[in-house]
Structures are given as C-alpha cells and as structure tokens.
C-alpha cells in the first residue's frame, strides 16, 4: 500500500496554506507538483555541474553531458524503449508540432488524418495547419452521446472507411479523464499502415505506458505533468520512422557539417535537438523518473483508483451536479457542472477555501461543443492526494454551492 504520509512529505508545496486553509491541490492535470528530489537536482546541477552539454572536454561539461544522457536512458527504460528513440522537446505541444511538421512530407491531398473528439487543442490545431498546407483532411472520431466516450466499433468503421495516413489520439483526456482504448485502435490501424501517434501528456504519470506493448509509432509527453520541471517534453518514435523525418528546427548541436552552401545533419535524436537544450530540465526529469520508479505502480494505481471512486460517489450524491465522461476507465480527472451556475463562480469560491481546481474549456473547445456546454469545473487528482482532502473538498463544495443557491 502507498504510504501516503511519506509520499506527501516529499512534496514541499503540499504544506502551503492558501487563504488561511491548507492547500488542496486538485489541478494536477494542468501541471503536477514536484518532489523535493527534483527541485534539489536543479539546485545541485547549477551549483556543481552547470555547463553546456556535448563536445565538452572539461570536467563540468563531462558531468553535465553524462547526467543529461543518463536521463534519456532513464526515460527510455521507463517506457520500454531505446534511448535513441527519445527526443527532448519543450513540451507535448512542441512534440506534436514537430511530428505535424515532419509528417507533412508524407501527405498528399485527400489523405486523412484521424483524431478523436476529445483532443486537446495541441492535438487539433497543428493538424489543421498541416491540412491547410498539404490538402490532407481532418476527420474526427465522434463522442458517443450517451457514454461520453468514443466507441471502438465506430472507430474501426472510420478506420476502414478512411484508411487514415495518420491517427493521432490522446491516451487519456485532460478534460474528462477518459482512458481511451488505444491499444486496440493502434492494433487495428496496422491494417492500413497508418502512422499512429499517441498524446500521452495526461497518461504518462498515471498509466506508465509501455512502448513495446502499445506498439504505436510515436508517443508524446510533457515533463511538467509528470513530476518534472516546466519547459521540457519528450517524443518517443520508433527509430527508423523517427529518423526518416526531416529536421525541424536547425542550428547548433544537430549538425554534421555546414558550409555557406549546404548543411548535413546528424541522426536522430540529435537531429531534432537544435541548440542548447533544457539541460537542468532534462537532468531533473531524470530524477522524477527515479522517484516514480521508487513508487510501486500497482500501489499508485490502487490509491488513485480508490480516490477517484470516492470522489465520484461523493459528487454523485450532490443533487444538481452533472458529471461528464467515462467514470469507469479514468485517470482520476472529473469534470462537472452545477445547475446553471458558472464554473468561474464555483472555482472562485473554492479558492477561498484553499482548493485549487481548474475551470473553463480546458483547451478542448470542440469537446465542449460536443457536450453542448461552455465549460466545466475540473478536478484532477494525483497519487499525492488523499481521501481526507476529498472529504474536505466535498464539505467546502457544498458550502460554496449553497452560497450560489
């Protein structure tokens, strides 16, 4: 079982007092909190090894490079991939943009790019840009109105119908928490040699994806949503396909040779890492991975699941509350509304109680339109949350709602 007290002690921010109340942080879907070891590693790096990476003949440069590449190994191992299949980016958004840019070359007018109705703007807008540039067509796997998730049958039918060149879909929805049936979908897409991309921004920490098992072509994630620092993300790609993509940004580090006439580039992952990378970010994300490895995954899942079930059951008891999405297969994220009240009012009052939730469309405007709403209040849990926090939250929530009635 997860020793939750011990876990919480490792996150210094969880001791914060906000508006005279202990902080209850239910906004991990926006960004996770960071354990002390991650913070310490940044501190340590800048006080002991700070230096630019690669080509460093001096000792600091060597220290920095070794730690930097070690972190790549750690992440690779964590998701069951090879180090050279991991590209560092500045976030899931950049990873998706890199892919959209690189895969444009493979597209012809009329080719279909298939996404789901639950996608974050980061997995919609880059593809719209690609379609505008290449004549490809964006198609959507719809939300089933009753279950508020995508249906596997419908998805298969659409795959058969469109034989998409690219399928890009989130592992878990940031707004609803739905865990999507990606293993089956990836498997089915192989029928048409579809290039499969998984947006794992929300799933990385909660689901610890296994690249060999998933068998997708690409998987993207953000460090800051998985205990790591801001300003860093990653892109996993099956090596051959990854290496076949054209370069994205160009500059130092990724060069074999440059003359004023022409340039040649190194192989992946280097060719996608132009310029000085987020060195302290990468190294401290390595420590975040170490931290996760020390937490038993089954313990984490069990704890997260029990928090989710408890929260759901408590919310369901409050009349006037409407819950959205898949309430079975879920990473621990619940979106709700209360009568006709505006989420903004609810969140503002909750903030008075030291409770951090997110409101709005959560960068999923098209999903809001499918649900026929403007926005929601979103609670997103992580393994460092407690049952007691949920109890407190429910008490405060009821108070706040009564203010609105």
């Amino acid at each position, binding site marked *: 079982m997860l020793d939750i007290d011990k876990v919480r002690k490792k996150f210094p921010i969880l001791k914060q007092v906000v508006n005279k109340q202990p902080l209850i942080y239910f906004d991990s879907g926006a960004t996770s909190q960071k354990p002390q070891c991650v913070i310490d590693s940044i501190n340590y790096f800048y006080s002991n090894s700070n230096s630019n990476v690669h080509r460093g003949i001096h000792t600091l440069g060597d220290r920095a490079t070794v730690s930097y590449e070690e972190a790549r190994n750690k992440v690779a191992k964590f998701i069951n991939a090879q180090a050279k299949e991991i590209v560092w980016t500045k976030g899931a958004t950049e990873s998706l943009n890199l892919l959209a840019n690189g895969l444009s070359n493979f597209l012809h007018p009329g080719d279909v790019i298939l996404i789901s109705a639950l996608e974050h703007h980061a997995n919609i807008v880059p593809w719209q840009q690609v379609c505008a540039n290449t004549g490809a067509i964006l198609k959507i796997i719809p939300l089933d109105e009753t279950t508020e998730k995508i249906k596997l049958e419908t998805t298969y039918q659409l795959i058969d119908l469109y034989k998409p060149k690219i399928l890009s879909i989130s592992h878990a929805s940031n707004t609803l928490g739905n865990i999507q049936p990606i293993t089956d979908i990836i498997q089915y897409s192989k029928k048409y040699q579809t290039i499969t991309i998984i947006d794992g921004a929300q799933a990385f920490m909660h689901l610890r994806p296994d690249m060999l098992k998933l068998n997708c072509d690409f998987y993207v994630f953000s460090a800051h949503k998985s205990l790591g620092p801001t300003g860093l993300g990653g892109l996993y790609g099956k090596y051959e396909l990854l290496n076949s993509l054209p370069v994205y940004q160009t500059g130092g580090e990724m060069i074999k040779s440059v003359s004023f006439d022409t340039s040649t580039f190194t192989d992946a992952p280097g060719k996608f890492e132009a310029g000085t990378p987020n060195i302290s970010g990468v190294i401290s994300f390595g420590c975040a991975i170490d931290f996760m490895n020390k937490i038993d995954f089954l313990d984490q899942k069990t704890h997260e699941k029990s928090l989710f079930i408890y929260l759901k059951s408590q919310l369901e008891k409050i009349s006037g509350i409407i819950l959205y999405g898949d309430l079975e297969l879920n990473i621990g994220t619940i979106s709700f509304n209360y009568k006709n009240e505006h989420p*903004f009012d609810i969140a*503002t009052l909750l903030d*008075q109680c030291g409770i951090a939730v997110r409101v709005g469309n959560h960068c999923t405007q098209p999903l809001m339109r499918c649900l026929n709403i403007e926005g929601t209040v979103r609670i997103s849990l992580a393994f460092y949350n407690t049952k007691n926090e949920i109890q407190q939250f429910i008490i405060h929530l009821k108070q706040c709602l009564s*203010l609105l009635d």
Partner: protein
Amino acid sequence: MNDSYINVKNQITQAGSWQEKYREIMTLGKELPVLPQELKVDSAIVDGCESNVWLYINFNNEERKLLIAADSDTRIVKGLLSIILYLYSDLTPNQILLIDANKEFEEMALLKHLSPSRGNGIKAILNEINRKAYLMNK
C-alpha cells in the same frame, strides 16, 4: 465619491466572513441592469476573460459624464461590475481620474480580483474606464 458607493463599500468591508462578503457581492450582481441580448456581441467582449464580460462606455456630452453598461455571465464578476458602477456612476471624467480603484479594492479586501491573471477582466475594465475618462478630459 457618492453616497451609494460608500454604502456598498461599508456593506462589503463589514461582512463577517468571506462567505458573507461574497454573498453581498453576488447580491449586488443581481441589481446590475441586465444587458439586452442584442448588446451581448463579440465586439463588446473584454479580452482575456475566462468568463464572458461585455462592456460599453459612452460619453454623455451634455452632462459631461461617462455612461457605463456592463454584464457578465458569472455572478461574482457581475457583482464586481456592480461595485464599479457604484464607484464611477455620475462622475465627470475629471472626478473619475482622481479615483484610486486599487486602493478601493484593497480596502474591500478584493484586491486579488484586480490581478490580470484571474481572467475576470476587472482590471481591463478599470483601465478602459480611465482611458476613456482621460480622452474626454483632454
């Protein structure tokens, strides 16, 4: 500053708890004249708000006064708009420019609602009122 504003301010500062304070604010919001649906157009929306806020500011040439109409789809912002209307209503541009809204909000312990990051548009509205008053005054 007019009496009705001072009244409102007293009500808010004297609230015994944050719950009471927000109840006051939301009650004030209910007093706010509802903006006709035809006026709730995109061009009147204040940028950078998490909720929708519509704002109209006009200058009454005869009375040399700013006329402000505003609405929001959230109760709290509506209440804050109502406070702003009390604060500025029936003032000349010159009088408006003399008001330190930051200080007023601070004294009501509502300063945090002026943070541009709160996404409620209040700060933007205050800026806009001052800008218009400044232009009228020239």
